[in-house]
């Protein structure tokens, strides 16, 4: 079992004719993802990796019965691409693009409250259900099918933690990168909720970082609603206030909110052990199983 995506997920790739889109569409297909269409304005009728390209997501979804979309579109046009998917409609949109203006995302966020479609990202590596499908840029080879769900705001940190898990023979049900931007479609709480409902997920790893209060809210959710054990990691303990640490969302505000201390404390209070190192996280998970 898995959350959100599996071998049946029918994927349209927005921006499939661009460099990134083309490369990762190929990677996805190689991994086994059921990429049924591409969507690029003005490129309808072409084929990429044998996949038909349409001018609009709506047409792609209609003609190829797609139910999920992955967005590889430059930042200036990415919010529009997300809107397009939300209205096409598909059930799931995964926005990989980094650098979408925050005010564009505020508008997307408003639309999300009006529709049933789920957005993952933006500025995220995507989602993978090992052995079945991946939507995004995660390197498939490091993941193993198994019992642990993983949710993370970061890409490469996810790979690091996954490799620590795999070293110990611990596989994953689904791993989802929710993205490093200030405004994102799927929060920790959303993902935790899905893992809690998934009967095959025996434990969850949650990799947070400085900025915002999403981790604190996750801690609250975990203590009130979750039976599945959760192990945590928080990046950015040494980050100074007021500096953006790569991710647009990874910033401790001048008023001291969004610190690693606050997040670790909240998680600990919710009974979530937080590792000092990625391998410590894997140790905690091993203890759960």
């Amino acid at each position, binding site marked *: 079992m898995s959350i959100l995506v599996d071998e049946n997920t029918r994927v349209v790739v927005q921006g499939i004719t661009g460099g990134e889109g083309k490369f990762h569409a190929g990677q996805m297909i190689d991994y086994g993802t059921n990429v049924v269409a591409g969507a690029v304005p003005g490129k309808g009728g072409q084929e990429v990796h044998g996949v038909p390209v349409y001018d609009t997501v709506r047409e792609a979804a209609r003609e190829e019965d797609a139910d999920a979309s992955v967005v590889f579109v430059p*930042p*200036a046009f990415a919010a529009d691409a997300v809107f397009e998917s939300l209205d096409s409609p598909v059930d799931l949109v995964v926005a990989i693009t980094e*650098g*979408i*203006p*925050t*005010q564009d*995302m*505020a*508008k997307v*966020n*408003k*639309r999300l409250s009006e529709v049933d479609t789920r957005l993952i990202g933006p500025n995220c*590596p995507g989602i993978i259900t090992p052995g079945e499908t991946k939507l995004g*840029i*995660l*390197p498939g*080879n*490091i993941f193993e099918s198994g019992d642990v769900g993983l949710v993370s*705001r*970061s*890409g*490469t*940190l*996810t*790979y*690091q933690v996954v*490799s620590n898990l795999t070293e110990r023979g611990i596989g994953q049900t689904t791993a989802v990168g929710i993205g*490093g931007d*200030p*405004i994102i479609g799927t929060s920790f709480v959303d993902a935790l909720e899905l893992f809690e409902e998934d009967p095959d997920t025996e434990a969850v790893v949650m*990799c947070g*970082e*400085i*900025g*915002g*209060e*999403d981790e604190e*809210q996750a801690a609250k959710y975990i203590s009130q609603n979750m039976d599945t054990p959760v192990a945590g*990691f928080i*990046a*950015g*303990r*040494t*980050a*100074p206030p007021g*500096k*953006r*640490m*790569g*991710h*647009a969302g*990874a910033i401790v505000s*001048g*008023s001291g909110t969004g610190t*690693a201390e606050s997040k670790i404390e909240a998680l600990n209070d919710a009974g979530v052990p937080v590792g*000092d*190192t*990625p*391998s410590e996280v894997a140790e905690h998970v091993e203890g759960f199983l």
Partner: protein
Amino acid sequence: MKLHEYQAKEIFADAGIPVPDSRLASTVDEVMDAVDEIGYPAAIKAQVHVGGRGKAGGIKIAEDDQQARQYADEILGMDLKGYTVDEVLVEAGVDFENELYVGVTMDRGEGEPVAMVSTEGGVDIEEVASETPDAIAREHIDPAFGLHPYQARGVVYEAGVDREYANDVASILTSLYDLFEERDASEIEVNPVMITADGDVVAADAVMNIDDDALFRQPDLAEMEDEAAEDDLEAKANDYGFDYVRLSGNVGIIGNGAGLVMTTLDLVDHYGGEPANFLDIGGGAKAERVANALDMVFSDENVDSVVFNIFGGITRGDEVAKGINEALGRFDEIPKPVVVRLAGTNAEEGMEILNADLVQVESTLEDAVQRAVENAEGNQ
């Protein structure tokens, strides 16, 4: 990016927000010319991106020529929390009766902007927020509709602003939100909005921060960033297109992906070292980019040791290894010891390519960091 007060005030004035008469000056003579035109009292305000300028001595009110000259001389060139003051804003003093706080910021938790008004202006608003949160009235803004007039009025009334000038304050707030939206701000605040004895409202200070990710569509603001001289290394990182933050330690850190780089910093700290920087070379980095990153870190004279931590997803370990070899091959002697850890895509090929004469190779993140910390201690 942060705008200077004088830049923000120019934008405010163009938007019809009342601001005091002012001149920018970078020499004492220019300050004296400015006060000639503006008269006394005149505020002389350091233009640096530092909070609490007033308390730190960066703002002085001159009542006559002698004071003006003295304060200009004191403030120009002074070091304010690590920033040198190159310019001051000379501004007409406002004879105020009340001070308000008016601001708009992005509430990331709600995913929408929020307008804030308080009658406790002129003081540190974050202190107000934490000690007497009820003293700040808040109104969330639906980004699809924008700030409705009734909302602008409502939050002003709710804050307890006097009816006599409530409309003028609401009008400033409306203009601030329009700027917030049009100029892709992440934060705009005026603290204080001064209310004069005549009931006039004036924006006496101006904070305006712009969303870095939106600078591509705010070319005039992006140009202002260049004017705002930054730390040399941060400027260099900007040219290279790296996410870079300079810190105070001596272990230089290079990695790919914000979360992993932050984690590397944290581990340096965890193992008793002190990170010198955050440097994310991003996804899919090729050899040249790797060489640039090494150049960056070696340029920091505080650095005694470097750790290079790559987990390849899109980024390929062999490409990174080539870049490291190339960059380090240029030196007769490697300036600082470099520990490299490669994992993920093509990591094994990379490890084989790496020239062991140039770098120390470790296979786990923990070992790599520990070794770099040790190197730094030995190198101090």
